[in-house]
């Protein structure tokens, strides 16, 4: 199953939208860098059953940690878990624009 890594803001880039359009059942989503702003974006609701991960350090940098704490559906992860996710999924697709 694919791991999709989104690193751009959903408010200014089409990265999330295009990623969701190419999302297969069973795929996982990882939010990094400006992609952590997805935490506050309504489009997240459309991913009903998918695993969603978010890099904790990148969210905290942007003041998203309190928001993240309120979200059951998103697992906040550290870098070790990031690497582990990459071992568990194939292929890995970066959405960086």
């Amino acid at each position: 199953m694919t791991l999709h890594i989104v690193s751009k803001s959903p408010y200014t880039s089409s990265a999330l939208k295009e990623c969701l359009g190419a999302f297969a059942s069973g795929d996982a989503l990882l939010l990094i860098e400006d992609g952590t702003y997805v935490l506050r974006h309504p489009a997240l609701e459309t991913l009903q059953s998918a695993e969603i991960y978010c890099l904790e350090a990148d969210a905290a940098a942007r003041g998203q940690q309190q928001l993240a704490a309120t979200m059951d559906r998103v697992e906040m992860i550290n870098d070790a878990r990031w690497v582990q996710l990459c071992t568990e999924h194939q292929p890995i697709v970066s959405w960086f624009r």
Partner: protein
Amino acid sequence: MSIKSLALCRTAPYGNALAREGIEAVLAAAAMDQAVDLLFLGDGVFQLLDHQSPADIGQKSLRRNLQALPMFGIEQFFVCEKSLAEREITLEQIQVAGAETKTVKDTGSLIASYPTVLSF
């Protein structure tokens, strides 16, 4: 027409250096007593969001740079009201000590009142 210039800040902090380099340019202008206003629009409003903790990604707080602006005479920040609403950000979340945050509905008229606009 105002003799001030406007810095239009549209970039989120940390993901890209533009937000930081924009604020550095504004600081340089303020340090030279050149009057400059700031308008935060789009993802630029994220620059003002509180609780930024970028130490773990190896960067310095950009909000701290914004907090230095009042010391250089920049005591008001214009913020696009629509951009805030779209991101569900409240006014309380974007307060900076020593500066007044003014939400703007008609950003077009505000922009048109400056002779020069620098985009960041």
